Structures are given as structure tokens and as C-alpha cells.
């Protein structure tokens, strides 16, 4: 795996939201074939990182580098990034009332793949994915995320990512609001996206999704940066000892240096 080329390289990234610094020097390299998990408390800046990678206009990169397959993406619009192969599964996907799921999926898939997929071919692909993710047919005629339960929204996010086949998938708290069954199905959907060419960045509060989607690396986020990294055992450690423990170790480390 070490011979793989990096998909995402973030170097000393600083990001402001309305003149307040939220990310304070993030360093992170994700190579093809890897699954990385970022864990941390609410307000530590995890979601800011995901929005910044996707290019939300409210999040301003003030310094640092953000390279996707070697190319600087900070100045690119979200749709340019999407077309390059970056996708974000939202923590809180917004509703687009009046737009049916089927129409939306076709439009966005065509946009990301850069070609019109024949209707029949698209339908076959979609039906197969829906079956895997336990999504019912009636879903397609509903308006996007309108009146969806938390679990339905997350399933739709994973369904979209499965169609868009991104090289870099960022999953922002995809596990929140899911019951155990839904968590299993959604995790299977995530695992199906894994390939030697793709990279996955999983952002989560809890360890529980990591039982199903096994990360190669776990990073702990605090106060706008990664304060420690490790293998998947770090997640288990965090689960039993809490985030306070990480804070303590870093303090100790600083002292001992």
C-alpha cells in the first residue's frame, strides 16, 4: 500500500469562517486504497475539514496546501471538484423540494461522469445499487430529502456516492442517526466503494461505524488540527477512555519532549 500515490495531501491548512480561524494547521495525507477515520468532539473542526475539501464558499483557506492527485484544489468550485472525483456524504443533507430523487440522481450522475448515460443503462445500475442498500422503488419518485427520516437521508447519500464513484469519498458523520441495521447496510455500501484506486475519509464521533468499516488510520481532531494519529486500535482506546485521555497524552508528550 505504501507504494500508492497520494489522493489527498493537506499541508498546514488554515481555514477561516467569517474571520474566525477554525482549522489551525491540518496535515493529512491519504493514499489510494486507504481508509482514514477522523474522530473528535463536536466543534473540533471535523466538519469544517470536510466542507473545505469540497469547497463550501463560507470556508476560506487562508494558508496551506490542499492537493488532490497532486493538483491544488483550493480555488476550484465545488462542481469542478466533484467532476474530478471528490464527493462528500453530508451530515445534514438539505432537501430539494419538487425535485424527484430519480431526476436528481440522473442529472448529477451525468454531470459527474461527463456524459449522458442511456436511461436504460442508468436504471439497471441504479436498481442494483438500490437493492444492495435496501432502498425501495418508491424512493425514486419522492422529492430529494424532503420529509426523509435521518436513516433515509444517509442511505440516499451513500446511494449517490455509489453512483458517482468518487476517487475520494468524504463521509461526514454518516453513522449519526442510524439504527444498527441501517448502520450495517450503509457500512456495506461504503465497503463496496473501497478499491485500490479510491480513498475514503470517514469523519465520526463514535467508534461504532469503525466496527463495520475498518480504517487503516485513525486521527484525533482537536481545536482545529490533528493532535494524534494511529491505527484502528486508537479508535477502541478512545471509545473506552474518552477524548480527555488524548488531551492528557499530548500534554504529557509536550512536557516530556
Amino acid at each position, binding site marked *: 500500500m505504501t507504494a500508492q500515490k497520494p489522493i489527498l495531501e493537506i499541508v498546514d491548512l488554515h481555514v477561516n469562517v467569517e474571520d474566525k480561524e477554525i482549522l489551525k494547521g491540518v496535515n493529512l495525507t491519504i493514499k489510494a486504497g486507504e481508509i482514514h477515520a477522523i474522530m473528535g468532539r463536536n466543534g473540533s473542526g471535523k466538519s469544517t475539514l470536510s466542507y473545505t475539501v469540497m*469547497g463550501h464558499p463560507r470556508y476560506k483557506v487562508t494558508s496551506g496546501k490542499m492537493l488532490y492527485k497532486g493538483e491544488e484544489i483550493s480555488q476550484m468550485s465545488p462542481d469542478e471538484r*466533484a*467532476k474530478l472525483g471528490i*464527493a462528500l456524504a453530508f451530515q445534514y443533507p438539505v432537501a*430539494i*423540494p*419538487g*425535485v424527484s430523487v430519480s431526476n436528481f440522481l440522473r442529472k448529477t450522475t451525468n454531470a459527474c461522469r461527463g456524459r449522458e448515460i442511456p436511461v436504460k443503462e442508468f436504471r439497471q445500475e441504479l436498481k442494483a445499487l438500490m437493492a444492495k442498500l435496501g432502498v425501495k422503488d418508491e424512493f425514486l419518485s419522492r422529492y430529494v430529502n424532503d420529509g426523509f427520516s435521518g436513516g433515509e437521508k444517509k442511505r440516499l447519500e451513500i446511494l449517490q456516492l455509489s453512483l458517482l464513484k468518487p476517487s475520494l469519498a468524504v463521509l461526514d458523520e454518516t453513522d449519526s442517526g442510524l439504527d444498527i441495521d441501517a448502520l450495517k447496510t450503509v457500512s456495506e455500501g461504503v465497503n463496496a466503494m473501497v478499491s485500490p484506486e479510491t480513498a475514503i475519509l470517514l469523519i465520526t464521533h463514535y467508534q461504532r461505524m469503525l466496527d463495520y468499516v475498518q480504517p487503516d488510520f485513525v486521527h484525533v481532531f482537536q481545536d482545529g488540527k490533528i493532535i494524534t494519529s494511529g491505527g484502528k486500535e486508537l479508535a477502541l482506546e478512545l471509545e473506552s477512555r474518552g477524548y480527555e485521555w488524548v488531551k492528557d497524552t499530548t500534554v504529557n508528550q509536550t512536557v516530556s519532549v
Partner: protein
Amino acid sequence: MSESLQVDNLQVSTIAREKVEDLCRLNGEPNWLKEKRLSAWESYLQCPMPTVKDEDWRATLVGKLDLGKLCPAAPLKEGKTASTPDLLKAALKDLAKPGAVYVEDYARGQMSVSVEAELSTAKVVVSPFAQAVESHKDVLEKLFAEKRGIQDKFTLMNEALAGGGLFVHVPKNTRVEAPVVMMLNLPENSTAATKDPSGLAVFPRIIINVEENASINFVSIVASEKTAEATETVLAASVVEFHIAAGAKVSVAEVTNLGPEVFFVNRVRAYVARDAVIDFTTAGLGGKQTKSDIETILMDRGAHAAVKGVVFGGGAERYAYNTIAEHAAPDTTSNINFRVALKDKSASIYQGIVKVDKVAQRTDAYQSNKNLLLGKEAKADSIPKLEILADDVKCSHGATVSPVDKEQLFYLTCRGLTAPEAEELIVTGFFQQVLDTIPIQGVVNFLAALTSDKLHKS
């Protein structure tokens, strides 16, 4: 058009009694109708021209309408040319096989009516108004006698000078699925009429009478076509009435797609009897100034009105819609849903009144108006009002005016759509929510195509 479109020297601003009488003679109308015209004419003279100081007209450019330049259109001759107005063609393509098509084409100077055998067999009447005055005088005389509703300068103008128009009658227990389609096609300028003053005014009167437990679908298209280079004012002031008897249901889709020089003043009145339903959707997609008042009068228990609007402004177009939901009996329900999206410098004002009479206990009324501002210079106003005299009612309303939601835009751009593509999809969805509720088959596609065209028109 070889003949003049206009009645000689009959200016709208200075109607003389003899001229109204001339019109009656020209149409060969009976005395009772002549009396109605003359009484409307007298009221018309008394009634001041509305100004922007009037609550209902605050956003309407009546001052720009030079009545002195307008002459009412002469009655159209029946005929059929090879060319059908484009919009009608498009509508007929999308609609399920229509039951009847009535065309009043002032751009080509002719009218036509065709009724399918299915409707004739069921004794459904679809007739030009002038003919119905003779053939259905009893019904019409009765309907005219029991009239109520708001009168204003333009309504009275219509009543005094009405020409053209349509009468539809659906007998008891007759349910007609195939829609009755009416098209009013106007010239976008009337230089074809050589006389001075050269503006054209048309005053269609449409009466739809649906008896007990009957039902009908009605599609009305008001459009205009370029007929010459120069621009002169064109005014259409129509009155549309629905008389809906107990247990009957009427579904209506009305589209106005007029050129930038055409004024449109419209008054819709629906009288809804016990357990009867009106489902009314209007789509305002073009015109210099559209002023439309939609009154639904719920007259007996169980009556229901659903009034929906899709308004899409562009350029310097102006729209003023008033909805008046009157609950005149207990246990009546109304639901109003008006959606407005505005591009460029277009402007809209929506005023909605829910009136609950003292007797109308257990009224359930909801009123919603959402406005989407797409142009930086576009302007939308929303004034919802409640006038409640009963004490046991459920009435609520909501109004919003906002630009396109930034989080929706971000979400869609994250999925590969460019910002303009994302905005387009959001606007489409904004309207689609209303269009999806239209019960007349095929209308959704027709209107979705029209709003999509407008979205792409710069």
C-alpha cells in the same frame, strides 16, 4: 386581417350609452342582457379609475394604460385557418385528448369551436357566449340574476363591453374527464387596425356552469403573438365565473403567456355550493402587467377551494395577484398556495385575503405564498390578510421572500452541477411542487415545459 378589429370610434375611456346599445345590436342580444350592460355602464361611469393609492392596485401600472387609445374588439367571425397558435399546439400535444377546443384568435381575426361527440352526447354545452345567449337564455338569465362578488372599474368595463367569451354547461351527474380547452390569442400590437386611436381591448366573458355531482376539467390559455413591428397597447380584461353546484367538482388550469406590451386584467369568481370543490391553478408567465383577482366563495357546508399559483416573471414584467377566499358557510375549507419566482427586474405583489363570515364556524383555511428572487433587481411583496368574524376557526398563513438557498446550491454543486444548473433545478422544483397537484392530466408537462423555456430565456 382585412377588416378593422375594432368597433368604430368606441373608445374605452369615453363610452357613450348609444355605443353600448350599438354593441348589443351588433351581437343581436336580448333585452335582459342589454339592461345588464347598461346598468354596468352606468356603474362604470360612477366608478373611479383605480390608482396606486388603492390597496388592491398598489403595484399595478394602471396609470400607464391609456384608455383613450383603446377600442374594444369587434366580434370575431367563425373560421378555421391552417395555422394554430404555437402555444395551443404545444398544449394539445401534452393534454389528453381534449373534449372541446374553443379558440378566440384576435391575432388572426377569427374564432372557432369544436366539440367532441362524447361531450355532445352527454349534453355538455361548449358554446361561444354570443350563441349561448339565445340557446341557453334561461340558465344565463338566472346566473346573471344571482351574481355577487367584487366589482371594480375593469369588471364593469367587461360587463358593459363584453365580447366573445365562452359558455360551458355540464348537466347533473355528468363527469367529463377530457378537458375543455379555451385559447385567447391576442396580437402583441394592433397596428393592423389602421384607425387612430389604435390600441385594442378585448373583454371576454367566460361562464362555466356545473350542475349537481357533475365534474369538468377546464384549461384556459391566454397568449399573444407578434403581428406587426410597431407597438401599441393591448388590453384584455376578462371575467371568468364558475358556478359549481352541490357535490360538483371543477378543476382549472389557467396560463397567461403574454408579450411585453400586453395588459391583462382578470377576475375569477367561483361560487362553490355544498360539498363542491374548485381546484384552480393559475400560471403567470408573461405580460407587461398582469392583474388577477381570484375570488372563491364557499357558499355551503363542505365546500372546498384549492387555489394555486405559479408565477414566473422576467424582464420588466409586473404581476399583481389577489386571492380572496370567502368562507360564507360553516365547515368549509380553503387552501391557497402561491409560488412566485422573479428574474431580472420583474416585480410581483401577492395579496391574499381569507374572509370568514360570522356564520362560517369550523372554517379551515390555509394560505401560503413563497417568493424566490433570482434577479438582483427583482422585487416581491407578499401581503396575507385574515378577516375573521367567526370564533371557532382554524386559519393560518405563511409568506416568504428570499433568494435561492445557498445550502441547496452548495449541495447540488457538490454533486457536479454548475451554479446555474443548480439554480435551475431549484427553481424547477419550486414550481414542480405546485404543478404536481394539478389534477388535469398532461397539464403538468405543458406548464413544466413553459417554465423551463422561461428559465432559459435571457
